[in-house]
């Protein structure tokens, strides 16, 4: 009964989504307030209905209702409760349900909190959101219905892929999807603005918080995924340039560009047409990521050709959304009036450079990911594009981008003095020289040249961002008390920028460290054997058997010492899941801030007396994720900027009296 209720709610949501889109569009065109206002209750109703459907599916998973096909295929009665709940989105149908849940929550948020939006803009934004909802609800109901029953119901289910039964991966999809779907807001605002034929700084100020929220959650989602791969796949890799990763990386790169170009629209009323285009491209890339992953085309072009129903459906959705919005763009963009003027060397100019490089980076990943598929489909031959290609093409764009990232905030709007900006950055320059020299000395030659570049870049980004902040609060140029006051009154968006930029430097440090100086020992070890890695002694004490709720595990015990001092006890596991007959490795990691000691237990050897043990020393690797989380926090801090609070664009003048503008400093 409850799954049927969920199914019914989903169908109802489809019709509500139609009501949310068509009448408001007509109403906005004919200035009919009643028709426009329908969008608000419709958006809320659609969210409630979709939540109801999602709750029904969750209920079926939680009580292990094996008469529902989706539960049979992805659950097991002995599965821990956490994974029963996360298993709802750990499969195709459920993940699409999560997608639409996010979409309707964002839509309802605009309906509830967008009180100060101009009525026609609000109606059109909600209508476009409604149309996206229609597309995805149709997709779920026609090709991916999670409420299908099986008769007779089997006794138990097939269990969830054990690799997904992990806390890191359990919460990865919601963050990732919140990011993907969050960009739909930027898209809806862009399309609505094109229909309106007007883009102004207020528009940018409405769009930026949504973009920031989406960008922050996507950053977190990608970081979590990378962390999971690091500890779960058994050897400590953290990024593989796999097409599936690239599918999430492309919207991130484009979204980062959007975040920055929207600043120019907001502050200077320029780059409007470009920002609209970026909003369309960013969401299209999110849709394309969904297509790539959902259609199965990555597994093999052949598999896609055999069962193309889902893939074709998303492809058509993609074509309508992208094609339609680009057509609208080509018709309307020329009518958008160009705004503020600026010289090439200026804050605007720096943000244009940022956009140029980020767009090139996005295009590089796009070509590298899709071109092999294209060749294969066109039967022009097969070509492999892997990490070596991306490292060779992406880094030449990324390195100048980070170099420029530090200089940009020092440039003033309209026209700036590059020489003066660089002079103010002398401390960062000194930091780069010291960091590179120390690295070269400590590592006796420093390893690959690229590693030295990486270290220098990390120092430049981190120290340079802090120097900019110090400069802004006039640290050491005025009394400490005065600087403190300035820091407190600095806009939150300025804080956010400093945090995010500096944390990118930390991530670069981690990436460089582990790529250049990882050491390892792969050997067959008997209990009592010792191995030595990076000055640490690992003693293998033996293997015990452990029973988990739905798996059995061999748990190895390793005592780690350095110079005779005990450092840690590491207990890596090899788990066998009986239902799926799969084995997973649970590596054991001892982390200090400067490095990770990483042990993974492999297969027993032929005669059963020894195990294959992989021990790694990953220098600096934790900083990749510390930096990632920091970037997300930077985004969130920026989001709390008072100018973005609900209705801020309208109320700004009133609020100005209460001291919001007390510090006469350049914002951003």
């Amino acid at each position, binding site marked *: 009964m409850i799954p049927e209720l969920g199914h019914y709610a989903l169908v109802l949501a489809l019709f509500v989504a139609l009501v949310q889109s068509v009448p408001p569009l007509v109403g906005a065109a004919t200035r009919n307030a009643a028709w426009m206002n329908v969008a608000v209750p419709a958006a809320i109703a659609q969210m409630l209905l979709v939540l109801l459907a999602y709750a029904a599916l969750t209920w079926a998973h939680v009580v292990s209702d094996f008469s529902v096909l989706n539960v049979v295929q*992805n659950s097991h009665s002995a599965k821990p409760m956490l994974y029963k709940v996360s298993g709802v989105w750990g499969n195709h149908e459920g993940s699409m349900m999560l997608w639409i849940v996010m979409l309707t929550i964002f839509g309802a948020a605009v309906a509830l909190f967008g009180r100060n939006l101009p009525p026609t803009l609000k109606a059109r934004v909600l209508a476009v959101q409604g149309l996206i909802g229609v597309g995805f609800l149709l997709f779920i109901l026609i090709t991916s219905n999670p409420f299908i029953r099986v008769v007779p119901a089997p006794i138990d289910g097939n269990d969830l892929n054990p690799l997904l039964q992990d806390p890191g991966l359990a919460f*990865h999809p919601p963050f990732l999807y919140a990011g993907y779907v969050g960009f739909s807001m930027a898209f809806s605002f862009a399309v609505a603005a094109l229909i309106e034929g007007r883009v102004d700084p207020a528009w940018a100020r409405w769009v930026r918080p949504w973009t920031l929220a989406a960008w922050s959650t996507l950053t977190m989602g990608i970081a979590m995924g990378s962390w999971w791969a690091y500890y779960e*796949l058994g050897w400590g*890799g953290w990024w*593989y340039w*796999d097409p599936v990763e690239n599918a999430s990386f492309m919207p991130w790169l484009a979204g980062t560009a959007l975040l920055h170009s929207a600043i120019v629209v907001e502050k200077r009323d320029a780059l409007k047409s470009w920002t609209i285009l970026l909003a369309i491209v960013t969401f299209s890339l999110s849709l394309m990521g969904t297509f790539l992953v959902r259609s199965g085309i990555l597994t093999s072009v052949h598999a896609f050709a055999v069962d193309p129903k889902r893939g074709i459906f998303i492809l058509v959705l993609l074509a309508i959304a992208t094609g339609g919005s680009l057509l609208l763009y080509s018709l309307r963009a020329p009518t958008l009036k160009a705004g503020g003027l600026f010289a090439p060397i200026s804050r605007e100019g720096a943000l244009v450079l940022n956009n140029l490089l980020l*767009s090139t980076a996005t295009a590089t990943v796009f*070509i590298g990911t899709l071109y092999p598929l294209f060749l294969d489909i066109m039967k*022009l031959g097969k070509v492999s594009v892997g990490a070596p290609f991306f490292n060779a093409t992406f880094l030449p764009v990324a390195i100048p981008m980070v170099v420029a990232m530090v200089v940009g905030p020092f440039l003033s709007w309209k026209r700036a003095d590059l020489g003066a900006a660089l002079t103010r950055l002398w401390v960062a320059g000194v930091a780069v020289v010291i960091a590179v020299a120390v690295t070269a000395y400590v590592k006796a030659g420093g390893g690959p040249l690229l590693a030295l570049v990486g270290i220098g870049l990390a120092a430049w980004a981190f120290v340079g961002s802090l120097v900019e902040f110090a400069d802004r609060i006039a640290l050491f140029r005025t009394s400490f008390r005065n600087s403190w006051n300035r820091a407190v009154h600095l806009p939150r968006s300025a804080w956010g920028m400093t945090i995010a930029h500096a944390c990118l430097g930390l991530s670069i440090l981690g990436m460089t460290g582990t790529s250049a100086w990882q050491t390892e020992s792969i050997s067959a070890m008997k209990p009592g054997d010792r191995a030595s890695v990076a000055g640490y002694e690992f003693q293998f004490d033996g293997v015990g058997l452990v029973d988990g709720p739905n798996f059995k595990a061999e748990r190895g015990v390793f005592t780690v010492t350095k110079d005779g001092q005990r450092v840690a006890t590491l207990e890596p596991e090899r788990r066998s899941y009986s239902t799926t007959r799969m084995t997973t490795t649970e590596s054991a990691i001892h982390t200090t801030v400067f490095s990770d000691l990483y042990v993974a237990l492999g297969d027993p050897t032929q005669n059963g007396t020894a195990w294959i043990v992989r021990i790694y020393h990953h220098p600096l690797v934790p900083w990749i994720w510390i930096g990632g989380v920091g970037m997300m926090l930077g985004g969130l801090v920026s989001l709390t900027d008072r100018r973005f609070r609900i209705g801020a664009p309208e109320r700004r003048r009133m609020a100005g009296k209460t001291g919001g503008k007390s510090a006469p400093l350049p914002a951003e």
Partner: protein
Amino acid sequence: MKRLLLAALLALSTLAPALAVQPDEVLPDPALETRARAISQELRCLVCQNQSIDDSNAPLARDLRLLVRDRLKAGDSDDKVMEYVTDRYGDYVLLRPPFKATTLVLWVGPFAVLLLGAAGTFLFLRGRRGVAAGADTAPLSADERRRLDALLRKDD
């Protein structure tokens, strides 16, 4: 994060932890082993999805790893080893595709995008300046000229 979205979204059952290089494969000479690892990362495991032979635990990947190490032990240079492998398995085995007609888009594409973007930006900035200059130097109307003359005369 390689398998991550695949895992999260497709729940593929073919995923397995990447426990690739086995202890018996590791060469005693660390310098040679480092070279073997670097070469392995450039070679595709032909039966896997986007995995290098260094990451894959497929038997075919192991065979290739052993082959690479055999060639290195025989004294081949890195380039010689790559040549040896591509002669047998074709260019498809290379994760960094060679520059040829079908990969032109791949190698030139990113730089073409950068150049086009830079050209577009240049034209945009120049065009904007043109607009600005045009706006600034719009000829004065007869009426404005008369008023300006009047003002200037008053100054004298």
